[in-house]
Structure formats: structure tokens, C-alpha cells
């Protein structure tokens, strides 16, 4: 493994990425926006009088009922109902931090590969002594590292700002061990999955937007597994995240194997469309 060459490619990828306004927006502003919107929502919930917020709900807390027991509050107490709703919503919002590591690297990887195909810059690159394994690794790292960094940063920012105004029970969800484990563990694995899917799809299309849409269709359904959580059927714990991580490792290996098989000099030059 030649880390000098890998470093050169990563530097090139980042220099190129930050000059693409669309990718730059997706990398910086979209995650920030996704992290700030829940904060606004939580702030409004916290700022509204408890009676006004939970007035219509009474005992009908629907999917949030599991939190009633967990928090040990009375659902008929407006303050208790508000806490239940806030905890429930905070749990759902956490899924955002699993969406960011899927969206960001996919955007970077597809832009990187499709633009190389369109400008035909892959052939001179492949003519250099760099090994395709190092090239693929460099492209994957160039997409995964900023995605994970931005996810963790947004999460830290979200937690830090939330700590200023949310009740301890809500903060316990946001900065609880379950989600810390989940985000630290799942972000890199999800990012790798997105990169692998991005590479596989990019090898077949010549348009960045199509590549991103198709990749999105492939990986975003992963988030469907969280629907039962929205329905109150289960809560995400560190144990659930560990199982999820194990499944993702298997998926990552499969997708990266497919990407590696496609990412060969011969295949790129003779088979890629």
C-alpha cells in the first residue's frame, strides 16, 4: 500500500469536491440543516406551555407510550406528557444522524467517479503506477472520512446545543450511551456502504444526478428498519445497534467486493458505460 499516492488522490478528491458547489452544499449545509431543524422543533416544544402542547393528547400518546413507563411519568400530567413526546421525538430525530453518513459519501463518491468518466480523466490516472486497490481505497476514504467527520460534528453540535435547553430526560436520549454507540459505530459502516453502492452505480451511468438517485434508492430503504421504532414497536439500544453493525459489516463486505470487482483497469476501460 502506497500511502503517499493514496494521500495525493485524497487531496485531489477533496480539492475537487470543495470546488463543486452542489457537493459542498450537501457536505456542509445539508447536515447542519438536518441537525438544526430538530433543535428548533425541540425548542418550540419546550417553550410552549405544557397544557397547550399536550392538551389534545391526553392519554393517547400512541407510539410514545413505551416512554411513559421508561420515564415514570403520568400521561395525564401535561408536563409528563410533554416530556414523553419530546423524548419520543428526540429518539426519532436521532435517525437523522444515520442518514447523513449515507447521503454525504454517496454524493462525493458518485460525483468523483462520474465526473472522472465524463471528463475521461480515469484513463491517464490508471496509466500511472498507482495500484487500483490504492486508488479505490483513496476514493473511498475521500468520501467516508468527511462523511463520518461531519456526522460526528453535527451530532456533537446537536448534543451541545440541546444541552442548553432540553430537560435531562431528553438529553439522556440524545447523549445516551445507546446513541453514542450507534452513531460512532454505524456512521463509518453506513458511509462505506453508500460509497460501495455509489461506485457500483457510477460504473453504469454517466450522469451524477442519476447515479445519486439510483444509489439512494438502493441504500435509503435501509432506514425502513426504523419504521417499527416510529410505531413504538421497539426502541433502539446499544444491543440493537451492535446487531445492526454486524449486519452492516456483511453488507459492506458484499458491496465493496462488487465495487472492487468493477474497479479494475481492464473493466473500467472496456466495460464501464
Amino acid at each position, binding site marked *: 500500500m502506497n500511502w503517499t499516492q493514496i494521500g495525493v488522490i485524497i487531496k485531489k478528491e477533496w480539492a475537487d469536491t470543495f470546488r463543486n458547489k452542489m457537493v459542498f452544499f450537501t457536505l456542509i449545509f445539508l447536515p447542519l440543516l438536518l441537525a438544526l431543524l430538530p433543535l428548533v422543533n425541540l425548542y418550540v416544544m419546550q417553550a410552549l406551555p405544557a397544557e397547550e402542547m399536550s392538551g389534545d393528547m391526553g392519554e393517547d400518546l400512541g407510539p410514545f407510550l413505551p416512554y411513559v413507563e421508561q420515564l415514570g411519568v403520568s400521561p395525564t400530567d401535561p408536563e409528563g406528557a410533554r416530556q414523553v413526546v419530546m423524548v419520543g421525538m428526540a429518539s426519532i430525530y436521532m435517525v437523522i444522524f444515520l442518514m447523513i453518513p449515507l447521503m454525504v459519501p454517496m454524493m462525493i463518491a458518485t460525483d468523483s467517479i462520474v465526473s472522472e468518466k465524463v471528463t*475521461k480523466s480515469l484513463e491517464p490516472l490508471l496509466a500511472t*503506477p498507482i495500484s487500483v486497490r490504492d486508488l479505490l481505497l483513496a476514493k473511498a476514504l475521500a468520501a467516508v472520512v468527511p462523511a463520518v467527520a461531519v456526522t460526528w460534528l453535527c451530532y456533537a453540535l446537536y448534543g451541545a446545543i440541546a444541552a442548553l435547553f432540553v430537560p435531562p430526560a431528553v438529553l439522556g436520549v440524545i447523549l445516551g450511551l445507546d446513541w453514542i454507540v450507534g452513531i460512532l459505530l454505524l456512521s463509518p459502516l453506513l458511509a462505506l456502504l453508500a460509497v460501495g453502492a455509489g461506485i457500483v452505480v457510477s460504473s453504469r451511468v454517466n450522469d451524477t444526478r442519476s447515479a445519486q438517485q439510483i444509489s439512494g434508492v438502493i441504500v435509503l430503504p435501509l432506514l425502513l428498519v426504523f419504521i417499527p421504532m416510529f410505531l413504538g414497536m421497539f426502541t433502539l439500544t446499544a444491543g440493537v445497534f451492535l446487531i445492526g453493525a454486524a449486519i452492516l459489516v456483511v453488507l459492506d463486505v458484499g458491496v465493496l467486493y462488487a465495487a472492487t470487482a468493477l474497479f479494475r483497469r481492464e473493466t473500467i476501460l472496456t466495460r464501464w458505460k
Partner: protein
Amino acid sequence: MIVTQGLTRHFDGRVAVDQLDIEVRPGEVFGLLGPNGAGKTTTVRMLTALIAPTAGAATVAGFRLGKEDTEIRRRVGILTESPGLYERLPVQFNLEVFARLYEVPAGEIGPRVERYLRLLDLWERRKDAAGTLSKGMKQKLAIARALLHEPQVLFLDEPTASLDPEAAKTVHDFIQDRRAEGRTIVLCTHNLAEADRLCDRIAVFKQRLIRVDTPDNLRRALYGRAVRIALREVQPAHLEAVRALPFVKDVARDGEVLEVHLDDPEGANPTLVRALVQAGADIQFVREAEHTLEEVYLDLVQEEAGR
């Protein structure tokens, strides 16, 4: 510098290159000529270790294709059919990336990048995004990129395609300068005047090798040598006088010009001219008949197609 033996490449059962045997000598400019789809790009891709041959063997710069590919890549430079630049990145950065990938020592990258940018009149544009350059400038930047690591062998695929005459001349001069440095250059081109001007030897091929030689030898092999003699007015007696000479192989009339085929114009011309003057001809000028490389190429390709 390059030796191929039975180099063959198939794509899904279709033959792209068939049993190619060529030898490119060190320091020569070697032209690869052939119609579209003849297998020129496939040949270049095989010889630059980008794709593997289906059969056959080759050595490039002393290294075996398929066994020492990384060593080959270190020693060859390639100008691909399209420049393939990082269009959003500055000109200088484009070259620095490739200098590092080609393992140019860190201390030499800056001076070498500057040298080639200055040589190709791109230094003033070094901070501009490559995408803002004109087509000719992009081509020159791609040529600079192919040379950064001082390769022993340089493959140029259509280096002047769609360039204006001024930019094409810069590229031609640059190629000749690299030849003067002793670099081996393989030139793929459809521009036959360019091949005639730049190449020491050319290989005409269409999937398989049709002929390889110097442009002059190809002309002679196909057409022999001839002189064209313009007269004020061609008379039958002039033709008879020429035909009577023992060294004349053939005579053809083209208006008021006689094209006389013979083996040794330098030795025979004085006798030929005297015979015409004695037959009463008013000679206006005498020059050697020249066939363009285009004629040679088209005849060779048509002859091959007729087989």
C-alpha cells in the same frame, strides 16, 4: 524499446488486434496508422499496461507486459485521445497530482512542473482552472502531464486532433524536441501529413500489421521512383524518345507533363533530359514525382481490404 510478438486482443469474440509483431527502436518516432477501429487505441492500451492482451507477448522499455506492469507504467507516458484533465482544479495542481503519482522526487516536482508549463506556454495560466483553457491549451497540458516523469517511451494518441495550425505546430515542434532528447515516441494519428513529417517509421495496420517501414521506403515499395518533366508541348516524338531509353520502366502523360518511372533518377536524369532536348522538347522543369503518405496509406488499406 518495444517488441511485440503475436500481440492479440479480443473483445467478446471480436478481434481488435491480431498477431501484431512490431519492433520500435530506441529514440525513434514510430507512427501507428490505421482506419477507425483498426485497433490503434487498443494497442496503445496494451503497451501501456492498461489492458491485458488475449494472446502474445510484449516488452516495453525492457519489462515484460503482464508480469512487470507497474515498472512499465513508471517508464511510459501517455497522451490519451481526450486530455482527461481535472477541469475544476488549477493547471499547476493538475500536474502536481500526476508528478506525485509518477513518484517524481518531492524536491523536483516544483521545478519540473514549471519547466514544462513554461515550455508549453502555460505558465501564465498556472492558477486557472484547467476547464477554462482553450482546446489547444488543454492538449498541451495533457502532453506536459505525460512527460512529467521523464518517460523513456511516450505514447501520443491523436496529439493534434482538432487543434488549430498554430497549436498543432507547437505540438509538432515539441515532439521533435523530445525526439532530439532521445525519447522513443509512438504516435497514433489520422493526420498523414503529420505522420510523414514526424515519423521515422510507420506501421500501417488494420487489426493486423499490413506494412512497416520508413515513409520513403513505403512510397518506393509501392510506386518505385519517378520524375515529372513539364514540357511546353508534349509531342509523340518526345514520348518515343523517352521510351527508347533502356533505364525507363514506364512513361505516363499527364497533360503537358511526362511522368517517367525509373530506378535511379540521380544517375539517369542527365541522359533523359538530353534525349528530350534532342527530340526537340522545350523543358520547363524537372522534379522527382512524390506520392503523399495519404496515397500510400489508402492504397495499402484498400489492398488489405481486397484480400
